[in-house]
C-alpha cells in the first residue's frame, strides 16, 4: 500500500509539474523564433584633401571615442640584416616623444586623462589606436597628429625598446607555444622569406635612430592611411578638426619594395625540437590561399566542418571521443601571400603519434568523406545567424571597413557574403578540399621529448631535429 501511495504521489507531481510547464516544448528544436530585425550599421566614408581616408560611425550611448589609423607599411619592407626595424619605428614613434613634448610628457598627459594612443608596425600593417573620453577628443587628436607627423625618436627610448626586445628574444624559447608558432612559420615560409623574418640579438644591435627616422619618412604619409572613428562625436565637426590637424600634411608617392613571391608548394618535412616536458606541442600543414580567393566562402564552411569549431570533425574525434587534447584545431586561412593550412594540437607525450595520425587522416579524408546534411546546415546557419556579431560594437564596424579597404576587398564584400555562404554546396567543399589541401606536402613540427613518444616520428617521414639557440 505504502509503495503504491508513493507511486501515485510521484505521478501526481509529474502531472502537476508537466501542467505548469505546458508552454515549454519537449525539445529545443521545436522552438520557433520571431524574425530578427537587423540593419548593419554603416560607417560613412570620407577622403581628406591629402588623400587620407576616414570612416566615421557616430554612437552616443557612452561619452567615449575610439579610433584606428591603418598605415600602409610593415616589417615585410625592412631588410634581413635589420630585422626589428619596423617594430621599433612603430614603438618609438609613440614612446620617443613628438612635436614639442617628450615621450614622458605625452605619457603623463594621456594617462591623466585616462586616454591612450598606441602605435605599432606588424608584418604587413602599421597602425595607431586611440581611445579617450569624448570631451578630450580634440586634445588627444592633436597629440596623435604630432605622433604620426612629428615623432622625435628620442635615443633613450630606442635604447629602452631595444633592451626590452632583446630580453624577449632571450626568453623566446621559454614557452613551447612560442617556439611552435615561430619555428613552424619559418619552416612553412622557409626561413629566408620576409614573411617569417624574426629579429635576433644581432639585427637588433645593428639598428640606429637614423634607420627609424628614415623608415618613418618613407612610409608614414596621409595618402597611405585609412582612419576610422567610432563613438560620441559629431561627424561634421570631427571632419573639420581632422582637416585642421592633418590637412596641411602633403601627400607623397611611396615606393614599396617588391616582396619575392613564395614557392607554390612546400616540401614535406618532419621536424622536432627537444623540450623537457610531459606534453607535445604539434603543428603541421602547408601554405594556403591568397586573399580575395572566390572560393573563400566554401573554404570557410569547410573549415568549420574540419576543425575551426567545437562541432568540427577534429574536435569531436580528438578531444570529445579520444580525450587526447584540450585544444585542437585545423583550418585553411587566406593571407596576402599566402595563408596557411594549419592544424595544431597539444597532447601528452605518449599519444603524440596517435594524435598526428588521427588528424592527418581526418584532414586527408576532407576531400572525399561524405558531408551530412546536418553538418552543412549547422555550419551555414552558424555563419548566417552569427553574422550580426561582426557588427556588435561601433568600433568593430569601423575596424572591419578599414581592414577590407586596406587589403583591397571589393566594396560589396559584406553585402554579398551571407548569400555566398548560402550558395555553398557539398560538392564545393569537396572541390576546395581537393584543390587546396595537399596531404603529401605536410610540414610537421613537434616540440617535446621524443624519448617519451609511443612511436617514433620517422613513421611520418625522416625526422629532422632543430636545435634552438641558447641565450645566457
Amino acid at each position, binding site marked *: 500500500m505504502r509503495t503504491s501511495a508513493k507511486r501515485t504521489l510521484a505521478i501526481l507531481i509529474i502531472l502537476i509539474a508537466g501542467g505548469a510547464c505546458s508552454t515549454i516544448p519537449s525539445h529545443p528544436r521545436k522552438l520557433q523564433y520571431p524574425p530578427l530585425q537587423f540593419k548593419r550599421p554603416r560607417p560613412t566614408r570620407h577622403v581628406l584633401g591629402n588623400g587620407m581616408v576616414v570612416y566615421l560611425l557616430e554612437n552616443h550611448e557612452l561619452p567615449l571615442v575610439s579610433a584606428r589609423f591603418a598605415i600602409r607599411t610593415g616589417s615585410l619592407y625592412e631588410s634581413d640584416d635589420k630585422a626589428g626595424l619596423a617594430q621599433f619605428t612603430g614603438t618609438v614613434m609613440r614612446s620617443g616623444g613628438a612635436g614639442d613634448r617628450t615621450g614622458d610628457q605625452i605619457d603623463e598627459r594621456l594617462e591623466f586623462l585616462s586616454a591612450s594612443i598606441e602605435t605599432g608596425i606588424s608584418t604587413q600593417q602599421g597602425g595607431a589606436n586611440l*581611445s579617450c*573620453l569624448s570631451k578630450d577628443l580634440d586634445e588627444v587628436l592633436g597629440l596623435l597628429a604630432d605622433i604620426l607627423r612629428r615623432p622625435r625618436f628620442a635615443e633613450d627610448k630606442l635604447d629602452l625598446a631595444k633592451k626590452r626586445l632583446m630580453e624577449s628574444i632571450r626568453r623566446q624559447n621559454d614557452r613551447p607555444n612560442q617556439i611552435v608558432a615561430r619555428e613552424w612559420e619559418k619552416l612553412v615560409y622557409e626561413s629566408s622569406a620576409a614573411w617569417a623574418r624574426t629579429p635576433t640579438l644581432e639585427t637588433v644591435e645593428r639598428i640606429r635612430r637614423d634607420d627609424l627616422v628614415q623608415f618613418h619618412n618613407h612610409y608614414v604619409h596621409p595618402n597611405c592611411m585609412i582612419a576610422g572613428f567610432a563613438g560620441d562625436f559629431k561627424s561634421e565637426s570631427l571632419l573639420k578638426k581632422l582637416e585642421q590637424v592633418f590637412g596641411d600634411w602633403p601627400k607623397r608617392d611611396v615606393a614599396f619594395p617588391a616582396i619575392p613571391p613564395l614557392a607554390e608548394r612546400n616540401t614535406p618535412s618532419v621536424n622536432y625540437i627537444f623540450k623537457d*616536458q610531459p606534453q607535445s606541442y604539434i603543428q603541421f600543414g602547408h601554405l594556403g590561399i591568397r586573399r580575395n580567393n572566390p572560393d573563400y566562402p566554401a573554404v570557410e564552411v569547410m573549415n568549420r566542418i574540419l576543425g575551426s569549431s567545437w562541432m568540427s570533425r577534429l574536435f569531436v574525434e580528438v578531444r570529445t571521443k579520444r580525450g587526447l587534447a584540450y585544444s585542437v584545431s585545423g583550418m585553411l586561412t587566406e593571407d596576402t601571400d599566402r595563408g596557411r593550412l594549419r592544424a595544431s594540437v597539444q597532447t601528452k607525450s605518449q599519444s603524440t603519434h596517435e594524435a598526428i595520425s588521427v588528424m592527418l587522416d581526418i584532414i586527408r579524408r576532407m576531400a572525399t568523406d561524405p558531408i551530412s546534411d546536418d553538418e552543412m546546415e549547422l555550419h551555414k546557419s552558424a555563419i548566417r545567424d552569427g553574422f550580426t556579431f561582426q557588427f556588435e560594437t561601433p568600433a568593430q564596424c569601423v575596424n572591419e571597413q578599414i581592414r577590407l579597404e586596406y587589403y583591397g576587398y571589393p566594396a560589396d564584400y559584406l553585402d554579398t557574403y551571407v548569400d555566398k555562404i548560402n550558395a555553398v554546396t557539398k560538392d564545393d567543399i569537396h572541390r576546395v578540399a581537393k584543390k587546396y589541401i595537399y596531404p603529401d606536402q605536410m610540414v610537421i613540427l613537434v616540440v617535446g621529448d621524443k624519448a617519451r613518444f609511443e612511436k617514433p616520428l620517422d613513421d611520418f617521414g625522416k625526422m629532422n631535429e632543430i636545435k634552438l639557440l641558447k641565450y645566457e
Partner: protein
Amino acid sequence: MKTQRILWLTTVVLMAANGVARCEEPVRLEDRVVEYTLPNGMKFLLMHRPGVPVFSTNISFRVGGVDEKPGITGLSHLFEHMAFKGTRVISVKNYRAERPLLKAIDKAAVDLSNEMARGDLADPKKVAELQKRVKELEDKARQFSGKEEIGNLYMRNGGLDLNAYTGKDTTCYVVSLPSNRLDLWAWLESDRLLNPVLREFYSERDVVCEERRLGVETQPMGKLYEVFMATAFIAHPARYEVIGWMSDIQTVTRPMAEAYNRTYYIPANSAAALVGNLDIEKCKKTIARYFGRLPSRPLPPPVRTIEPEQRGERRAVVESDAKPWLLIGWHKGHPLDADEAVFEVIDTILSRGHTARFYKTIVRDRKLATSVGSFTGPTERYPNLFCVSAMPLHPHTTREVEQAIYEVMGTLVTDPPGDEELQKVRNNLHADFLRELESNRGMAAALANYQMIYGDWRLIQTRLAKIDAVTAQDVRRVAEKFFAASNRTVGEIVQTAKPAEKGK
C-alpha cells in the same frame, strides 16, 4: 572552458556625480539594471542596451577552487566541463539503454581510482586492465548518446562564444545570441540545471589532464604560480590551483561530481546576467517559465578554515629551463574590508601604465626589468594577497629586482601620492567603468560575478565613492600595516642547466 585567474576587483568602477567625463546624462548603472529574483532564490540581472539585436549572458554559481579540499581539487572545473555533456534529453539517443552502462563504468572507474591511489605500489597490469575496461564501456555507451548537442544547438542558432570559466570563487557559463533566441538559452540552461547527465566523464577527465599539462606543466609561470600559492597559504583552500593536482584529476569519479553538483548548483547559489538588446518584461516572463521549474534547496556550507597569521617570510623556488621570474605576495584583509579601496588605489599608483611608479623607476629609469605589475588574488570571497610579479632584464637578477620593488613600495610611506596622482587614479577608474559598459560580455560578467562574490552587484557602483575618498594618509597607513617582510611570500623561477635529452 578554461580556468580563470581574472580579478574582478580592479576592473569596474562607476562614474560618480562629480565624474570626470562630460556626459549629458551621467551614466547610472542603478537606472539601467533590473533585478529580478525568482521564489526559488535564483537572481537575474537584466540590462537593456540599444544597438544591434544581440545579447550576452553569464550564469554564475558561487562555487570554485575555494570550495575544494585534497582529493577533489579541480572538481569545480572538471564539473564545468561536464555541464556541456547534456541531459536526459540533450546529447542522447536512448537514455534508458545508456543509464545502466554509466553505472557499470562508474564501478570500474572507482576500482581504478582505488588502485591508482596506491601510487608507486599500484599494480600496473591491473591499472591497464581497468583503464581499458573504462574506455571500452564508454565507447559502448557512446552508441546511445549524441555528440555535443548543446554546442550544436547554440551554434546553428547564431550563438557565439559559448564557453565557461572556473575560478577560485565562481563558475560561469556564457554565451551570446541574437536577440530573438532568448527561449533557446532559457531552455538549454534550465534543462542542464534540472536534468544533468555527466556522460563521457572519464574521457573528459583525460581532456582536463591535457589542460593541466597545457596551462601548468609546460608553462614556467604556471608552475611558479601553483607552488607560490601553495606556499603563501598553508591552511585555506585558496592554496590550490583551480585546475587541481594531477593525481586528483586522474582519480575523481562521476558519483563525486554528481554529489558536488547537488550541493552547489542550486538556484539561491547562482545569479544570471543578461545584457544587450532585450525586451526586459518579456525576459522576466521567459525566465519565470523556465527557471521557475528549479526546486528551492538550502545554501551550500561556507568554507570554515581561516588562514592563520603569517609569522615570517616564506620563499618558493621552481627550477626550470626558463629565464627568471619573480612573484611576491603579502596577505591582506577580506575584499569587503574598508581598506580594499586603498589597495585598489595602491595597485593603480604602482602598476598602471607608463607613469606608474614601478614602470618609471624599475623599467624606464633603472632598466632592471622588462615589466613589473601588481594584482590581488587568488580569491575574492575570502582574504587574499596583494601580489607583484616581475620579469628581470638580463643581466639583472631577481634579487636586484626584488630589492627595487621593496624600495618603490617604500615610497608609498615616504612619498605618499599627491593630489594630482590621486586624481589620475580616480580619472582612470571612472573611465574604466564606462569602457566596461561598451561590451555586453564584460558587463554581464561583472554583474553576475559581483552578485555572487560580494553579494551585491551595486558594489560596482558604490565602490567608486570609496575610492574617491582615499587619501595619501590612507595609502601610507595601509602600506605600513601590510607590506612587512614577515607577511610576505617570495617565489622565483631559477634557471638550471638544461637536462640532457635521453636517447631512444
